[in-house]
């Protein structure tokens, strides 16, 4: 009897490999429906697996069997499912079947990455996740889409080269690529070479996580790529950077401080990176003229909030604050996937119908596309953290976790940033609901988008009203990691 993880991996890889064959037939668009149903089935299987993880038979030494992995895998597969459904109306390319096959491979890469517990598996699945996204960013073969693909491709290749070098140093120290062995070996040493390895890991994962010194490709890639693909970047592949960081870096910080110096500790470095990331993201978002760039900068700011939750873990991993912080971070990763996914998909719907992405095209949108406007308003309020929407609860957990320790200033900065971000979120809502549209005609919204919007809005409000269900699952995931 196969366990569910093995079954999901085989299912997704089999479908992704065979979908390109449909390119040879007349029924290319069928590939979208096949992929969507397979992803829905995988999502179901992986959630069931996460509730009761058993030893996987695929490769117990390479893949962990824990709730943390299935939590991230469920987010990745769920986002890919929504992106697939939205792409049916949105993507116009001759290579339809190839497009959906690449989406399947990205989901498979993120699935394997979430579970990997060996640096070899982590690197291979990181690349399996990255290659298809380079192509997806440039699927349009137009100037903007291609420019995004070139920039994203070269930066992505650089980040994987940096990760590879970090892994090579870790292997030199540990003599093994099992993450648990690497962590144990690194903890026994306190010299500069270990610090170099950790910093290279931070840089490599930081590019995908959109932490501030490594964020410059994000706005270009998100704006240039087709909006559905940007949804995938913001809501799914970025989360894979976080799961890699949790699996490797947080495990390392539990046992090692970069130097014996009391100022350059891992927690201080994480705190400063978090502060820079959320502040710069929010300030830069304020001046943007296009919705996709604005959402890209807001996505950078949200990465800063998620990073705040890691700080108490780096201070003392077994404390109660660390558990609260990590729970808040994981919860915010889930919430961010839902909120940012729905905001980007609204941008996709508006791009599809009005062919514009500048903020002026959102003036009076509530009269022209009421369902899309309502969804965008809800997701923007959730991003700003207004109760009782889902973003409020995860931010509450994150800021509470740092409020009682030496990092109180980080909690204050986070709350101020949240208030500040409401400025530009509310500004868009004001444009949609209070300003007059240029043309007052009603634009019909595609049925597939309406269904997606309904589900995502229900998720945002539902998670906000019943956060305890999700927090229980996440606490299980956190406990499986600690």
């Amino acid at each position, binding site marked *: 009897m196969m366990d569910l993880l093995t079954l999901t991996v085989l299912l997704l890889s089999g479908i992704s490999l065979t979908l390109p064959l449909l390119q040879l037939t007349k029924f290319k668009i069928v590939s979208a429906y096949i992929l969507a149903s397979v992803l829905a089935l995988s999502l179901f299987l992986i959630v069931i697996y996460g509730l009761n993880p058993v030893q996987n038979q695929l490769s117990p030494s390479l893949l962990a069997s824990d709730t943390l992995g299935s939590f991230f895998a469920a987010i990745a597969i769920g986002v890919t499912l929504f992106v697939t459904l939205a792409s049916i109306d949105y993507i116009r390319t001759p290579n339809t079947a190839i497009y959906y096959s690449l989406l399947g491979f990205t989901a498979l890469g993120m699935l394997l990455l979430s579970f990997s517990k060996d640096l*070899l598996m982590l*690197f*291979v699945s990181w*690349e399996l996740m990255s*290659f298809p996204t*380079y*192509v997806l960013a*440039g699927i349009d*073969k*137009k*100037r*903007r889409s*291609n*420019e*995004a*693909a*070139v*920039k994203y*491709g*070269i930066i992505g*290749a*650089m980040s*994987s*080269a*940096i990760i*590879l*070098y970090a*892994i*090579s*140093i870790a*292997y*030199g120290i540990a*003599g*093994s*690529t099992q993450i648990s062995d690497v962590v144990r070996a690194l903890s026994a040493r306190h010299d500069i070479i270990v610090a170099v390895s950790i910093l290279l890991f931070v840089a490599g994962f930081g590019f995908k996580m959109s932490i501030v010194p490594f964020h*410059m*490709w994000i*706005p*270009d890639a998100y*704006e*240039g790529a087709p909006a559905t693909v940007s949804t995938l970047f913001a809501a799914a592949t970025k989360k894979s950077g976080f799961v890699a960081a949790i699996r490797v870096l947080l495990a390392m910080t539990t046992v090692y401080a970069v130097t014996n110096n009391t100022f350059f500790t891992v927690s201080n470095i994480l705190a400063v990176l978090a502060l820079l990331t959320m502040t710069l993201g929010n300030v830069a978002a304020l001046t943007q003229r296009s919705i996709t760039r604005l959402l890209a900068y807001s996505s950078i700011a949200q990465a800063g909030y998620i990073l705040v939750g890691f700080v108490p873990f780096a201070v003392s991993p077994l404390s109660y604050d660390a558990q609260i912080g990590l729970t808040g971070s994981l919860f915010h990763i889930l919430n961010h996937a839902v909120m940012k996914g729905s905001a980007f998909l609204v941008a996709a719907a508006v791009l599809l119908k009005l062919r514009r992405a500048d903020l002026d095209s959102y003036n009076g949108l509530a009269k022209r596309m009421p369902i899309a406007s309502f969804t965008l308003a809800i997701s923007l309020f959730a991003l700003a953290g207004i109760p009782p929407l889902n973003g409020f609860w995860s931010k509450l957990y994150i800021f509470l976790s740092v409020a009682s320790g030496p990092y109180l200033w980080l909690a204050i900065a986070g709350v101020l940033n949240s208030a500040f971000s409401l400025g530009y979120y509310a500004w868009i809502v004001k444009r949609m609901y209070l300003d007059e549209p240029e043309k007052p005609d009603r634009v019909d919204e595609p049925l597939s988008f309406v269904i997606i919007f309904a589900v995502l809005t229900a998720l945002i409000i539902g998670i906000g009203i019943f956060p305890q269900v999700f927090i229980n699952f996440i606490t299980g995931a956190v406990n499986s990691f600690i």
Partner: protein
Amino acid sequence: MNTLADFIFVSSILFAVGIYGLIVKRNALRLLFAVEIMINAANINFVAFEQYLWNNAVGQAFVLFSIALAAGEAAVILAIIVVAYRINKDVDVSELSSLGG
């Protein structure tokens, strides 16, 4: 006789060359070469550590994976650069500024 330190020295020089190339060069093909140099620096590290310290074949297995992945990466990015050349008649990344970034 070569020691482990020699190999580590060569590999860190190669990594630095790669970083230098990524920062200074503006031709997309040269940027790709710089990334490949960085990947090969890591490969030298793996083989040297395996040969001098551990002798457990993990390093060499990792290098085989990384060579295959680097080839795949080069193929994907070269394909994207070919499309860029068809659109712009140029592969200079500083000319790519229609997105304003």
